[in-house]
């Protein structure tokens, strides 16, 4: 097996102190929150690693550190063995690394600039990374991206508000694909979508992984979703990794009490069979 990304003793400490003046007047100490605390794991190339946790578990913070949007307070993110935050690299090298890392966000509403046409949204990464020679090539690539996510070429002229939530999430996926990345962080990509649309987006993500050999870090609170999406699962609680297993093992035979509780609490349609016997009036 071939490791793509490794997180080593990753930590993120947020300073929640009051302003300096208030601290001096009321003699309050500085306050810190360890949003992520000594988390280590790695993801194999072409596989999906799911980070599962409830609100405040630090999963989104890890997501942002994984793509370089947030600098870790401690620890390292290694991509193919190279430190993502190595300061000795030149801007051009940084750019090459950035191009390989992309992200799909949770909100289908906030993740697309409402004032930009879809075509411009998709063309921006192409231009920034210098991936197309001229306007014609740019347009061709935009149409190809739209086709890849199941939208049509004419959608390039429309604005985000003309699309449904699921379609907007497809546009987000197309934007992430534009720079030909190897690795995509999916931060709760379907939690704001309706169930029937969620299935479409999850299937699309799986399809793209098979076709393009993508590596995913999948962030979610939904164990049912990770069961069909992930090769491996890590369970996060208050910034710490409490358990990590291959998907089937983790769900069938969880080790930690917290994981057991999460699995027990997940609402399931099948529970109706168990209930029907006793609740018949």
């Amino acid at each position, binding site marked *: 097996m071939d490791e793509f990304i490794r997180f080593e003793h990753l930590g993120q400490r947020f300073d929640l102190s009051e302003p300096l003046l208030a601290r001096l007047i009321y003699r309050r100490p500085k306050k810190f929150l360890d949003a992520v605390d000594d988390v280590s794991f790695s993801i194999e190339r072409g596989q999906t690693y799911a980070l599962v946790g409830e609100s405040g578990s630090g999963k989104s913070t890890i997501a942002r550190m994984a*793509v370089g949007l947030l600098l870790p307070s401690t620890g390292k993110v290694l991509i193919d063995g190279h430190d993502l935050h190595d300061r000795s690299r030149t801007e051009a090298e940084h*750019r090459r690394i950035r191009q390989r890392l*992309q*992200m799909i966000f949770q*909100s289908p509403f*906030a993740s697309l600039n*409402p*004032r930009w046409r879809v075509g411009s949204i998709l063309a921006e*990464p192409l231009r920034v990374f210098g991936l197309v020679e001229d306007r014609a090539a740019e347009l061709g690539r935009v149409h190809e991206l739209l086709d890849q996510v199941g939208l049509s070429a004419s959608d390039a002229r429309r604005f985000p508000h003309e699309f449904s939530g699921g379609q907007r999430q497809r546009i987000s996926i197309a934007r992430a694909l534009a720079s030909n990345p190897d690795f995509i962080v999916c931060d709760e990509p379907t939690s704001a979508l309706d169930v029937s649309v969620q299935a479409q987006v999850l299937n699309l993500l799986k399809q793209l992984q098979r076709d393009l050999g993508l590596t995913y870090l999948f962030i979610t609170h939904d164990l049912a979703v990770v069961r069909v999406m992930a090769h491996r699962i890590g369970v996060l609680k208050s910034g710490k990794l409490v358990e990590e297993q291959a998907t089937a093992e983790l769900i069938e035979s969880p080790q930690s009490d917290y994981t057991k509780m999460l699995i027990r609490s997940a609402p399931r349609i099948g529970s109706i069979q168990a209930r029907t016997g006793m609740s018949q009036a």
Partner: protein
Amino acid sequence: MNGERGAWQRFLASDFFYDFKRSPVTLVSFVIVVTLILLAILADLVAPTNPFDPASLNLMNGFTPPMEPNAFTGETFLFGTDDQGRDLLSAIIYGLRVSLFVGLTAVILAMVLGVSLGLLAGYRGGWIDSLIMRIADIQMTFPSILIAVLIFGVARGLLPPDLRDELAISVLIIAIGLSEWVPFARTVRGTTMVEKEKEYVQAARLIGLGSGQIMLRHILPNVLSPVLVIATITLALAIIAEATLSFLGVGAPPTEPSLGTLIRIGQDFLFSGEWWILLFPSVTLLALALSVNLLGDWLRDTLNPRLK
């Protein structure tokens, strides 16, 4: 077929235009503002006389009441004349031009300044934000007209005397512009702080765009609708500020009288019975400021999604 429609058709079909058509007050305000702006632009063509051409003035026409033939010359003036026999209608049309020019340029200055500082403060945060907003706070504790007088006084003091009248209008614009940037900066800062947390900005950061590009290309287009509202309301304020300054005698020079200058001249004659010299410029100023303000109110209500 949807995308092929022209911008104009889209505008006619928009909720914005629909709202506009349904509000009679807004329609009337719009007509008044457009008429006054057209009068100001076409002053040379529509004004009966050029009030600043000494050759066209006849002192015998002085103090002619509106709509009455002059006792000596027999000429009739719609709005009457002032002490020097200047046609008041023409003076108002030319005064309108000065008032609107000063108002609009001052608002543009305030807008550019306020939007830039607001974007910077909101996006960067930290000490830059503190510095800009504390300056804004301090400025807000003084009435803006006082700030304008102060800036006007300092600027004039620094200028050589022979340039004073020549640059009076520019100084006036800068004084009013500098005194009105704060509301722009505050609003833009607030909206920027909300927008910069949105995921489309994160996506832009992810591909390595710099702060400048993110502010200009991504955030700026999304903070413009409140700016438009403030600009409209500030235009009314700027026009009144200009009139106030000119009324106080520290604004437009007598060689280029604005509506405020005309009102100042007019009030000298109020008690001697020549009421029209004060009334007509005042009514024009009132109509202009009120209409602009009503348009601003309507814009605010229409563009604010929370009131929908």
